[in-house]
């Protein structure tokens, strides 16, 4: 029996005409860092606020450490939270900010002092105890926010886009600092962000959300390699989508007829007679013949081959439409078949030119199938 620290059971919340959360079911393990990832307005902040109690769901129950907290107000849920705009108490020093949750809970003075200093040491800001938030930089303020959230060792730490107000370089540094801190303390954490690189970098598991629903939950690897919907595939990393129909199935693989990739016979003579072979892709159970689906492959998994290379599986003729030099890689847009643009990223060891005819190979091991 896995130990769930947080459980959201069928949570729904409506604001006027908008369904911010639509039957959300989420379970977070003890000690896990789960990221809620999605575009603005997808409902991730609403979900977080259902956990904190700032939002009362219209339907569903919230459990923290197996206790039904749905009817328990925020201040009795024993949580720690870090805010996007830091939300430090401007009229209190760093010391008093960090000590606030301890003071509110009636801890004796000595114990408070000890815990505040310990927490300040954890975030490496012992020297700033008597300073006020307005005297600190953004990064420092956020560290204090973190300290205040952790000071009394809550069971759960919630982070609402904590790094969005910091500049890019600082964001990257603090990302790992936060991850490290959370791991060391063994605390369960829910981290809301719209930055997919951030979400993948620090999470144990990611919940991708869109329009009030959870599209997919999985490890960063699963989310990246095996997205289960077009939205997830598109939201995470770069992707190519090809529409097609299953013409046959064999042993875990399917042949997909992708008409868009085929050239029109009158316009361009087909090379190597590949027409009619279809795409070979790995197929899960439940795929049926005649089914319409999307084939998806990441640009850096697509191979570009010179036009004269030998016939191979999943290879199509195309023409380089545009290329962009990115330093460590080259980004090509290749026009294939009936006006399908396949995006390819290569390490630049073999170079092609704009307008050049090439072969585009979609290796079957890298293709994924998404039901629309």
């Amino acid at each position, binding site marked *: 029996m896995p130990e769930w620290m947080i459980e959201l059971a069928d949570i729904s919340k409506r604001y006027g005409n908008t369904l911010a959360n639509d039957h959300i079911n989420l379970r977070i393990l003890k000690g896990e860092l789960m990221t809620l990832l999605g575009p603005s307005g997808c409902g991730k902040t609403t979900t977080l606020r259902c956990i*904190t109690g*700032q939002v009362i769901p219209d339907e569903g129950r919230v459990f923290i450490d197996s206790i039904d907290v749905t009817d328990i*107000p*925020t*201040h*009795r849920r*024993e*949580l*720690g*939270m870090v*805010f996007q*705009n830091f*939300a*430090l*108490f*401007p*009229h209190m020093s760093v010391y008093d900010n960090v000590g*606030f*949750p301890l003071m*509110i*809970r009636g801890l004796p003075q000595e114990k408070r002092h000890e815990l505040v200093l310990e927490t300040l040491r954890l975030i490496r800001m012992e020297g700033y105890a008597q300073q006020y938030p307005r005297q600190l930089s953004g990064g420092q303020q956020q560290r204090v*926010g973190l300290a*205040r*959230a952790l000071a009394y060792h809550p069971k759960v730490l*919630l982070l609402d886009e904590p790094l969005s107000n910091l500049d890019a370089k600082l964001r990257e540094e603090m990302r790992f600092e936060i991850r490290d801190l959370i791991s060391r303390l063994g605390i369960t954490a829910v981290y809301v962000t719209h930055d997919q690189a951030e979400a993948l970098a620090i999470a144990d598991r990611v919940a991708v959300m869109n329009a009030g629903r959870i599209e997919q939950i999985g490890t960063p690897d699963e989310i990246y390699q095996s997205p289960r919907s077009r939205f997830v595939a598109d939201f995470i990393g770069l992707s190519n989508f090809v529409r097609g129909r299953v013409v046959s199935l064999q042993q875990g693989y399917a042949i997909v007829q992708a008409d868009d990739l085929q050239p029109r016979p009158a316009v361009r003579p087909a090379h190597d007679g590949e027409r009619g072979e279809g795409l070979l892709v790995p197929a899960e159970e439940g795929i049926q013949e005649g089914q319409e689906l999307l084939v998806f492959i990441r640009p850096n998994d697509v191979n570009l081959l010179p036009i004269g290379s030998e016939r191979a599986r999943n290879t199509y003729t195309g023409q380089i439409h545009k290329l962009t030099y990115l330093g460590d890689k080259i980004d090509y847009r290749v026009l294939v078949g009936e006006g399908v643009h396949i995006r390819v990223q290569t390490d630049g060891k073999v170079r092609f030119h704009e307008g050049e005819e090439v072969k585009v190979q979609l290796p079957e091991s890298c293709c994924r199938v998404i039901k629309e």
Partner: protein
Amino acid sequence: MNLARQYWRGLANGKKIIGYTFLWSFFLWIAAPFFIIFLKSLGRNWFGKRWLPPELTLDWYRWAVTVANIPRVLSNTLIIAALAVAVSTLIALPTGWALGRRRVPGKELLTSIILLPRMIPPIAYALGIAQIFYRLRLVDTHLGVAIAHVAVCAPYAILVLSSTFEALDERVLEASAVCGASHLRTFFHVTLPLVLPGILSSIIFTFTTSYNEFTLTLMTYGPHTMTLPVRTYLAVGEGYWEVTSAMSIILVIPSLLVLFMIQRQVEPEKLVGGFKGV
């Protein structure tokens, strides 16, 4: 090249000289009347022929205190100001909260209407107020005069407080709740300390406005509720310049005291200028 630089520096210095000249001229222009009144209140037989009064005396102050009954007048002024502050603040607190933190339809229009009493010269509506007060028997009562003052005191109180409450960050209150503080404890530990400066600022402004209010007092006062501004005005009519000067100085001193006290806490620019973002 050097010549050009010297020329620019000279010009900058020139700007400084002109600037300081204007500044000091302006200061003298404002301060001179006070200075003259101050001297007048302490001088005997000073009819403007010499720079300083020939004799110094406190007689005029004594007169003000005994004959003109200034202490009574002063206490009236203070009582009325205190009442005006109380009523204005009572009105301004919920109004400011609503305007600062809620979506109110027609907010700009409402704000303009609230400011109206300060845009129109009080004499325009003072007569109307007086007529109603007569009927309500509020004339010559401390409360009556105070309520009349509220017309000019409340607008700024509302503006200051709505600005204060608007600046209160919702997230900070949420943070307090997450840290374990109930609504009540959040109020005392977080909300109150954060809005107190704004409330104090509003009180001080309201107090000074009521203390200095003349027109509305003129239309609603009576023998029991004579205030200092009105008394000073009447003294001018009586022709005793020296006593009038003494009264003026007495009138000014509390305001000056308040100004010095609050100078550190509240930026005077905020009181006089705009409110949002200043």
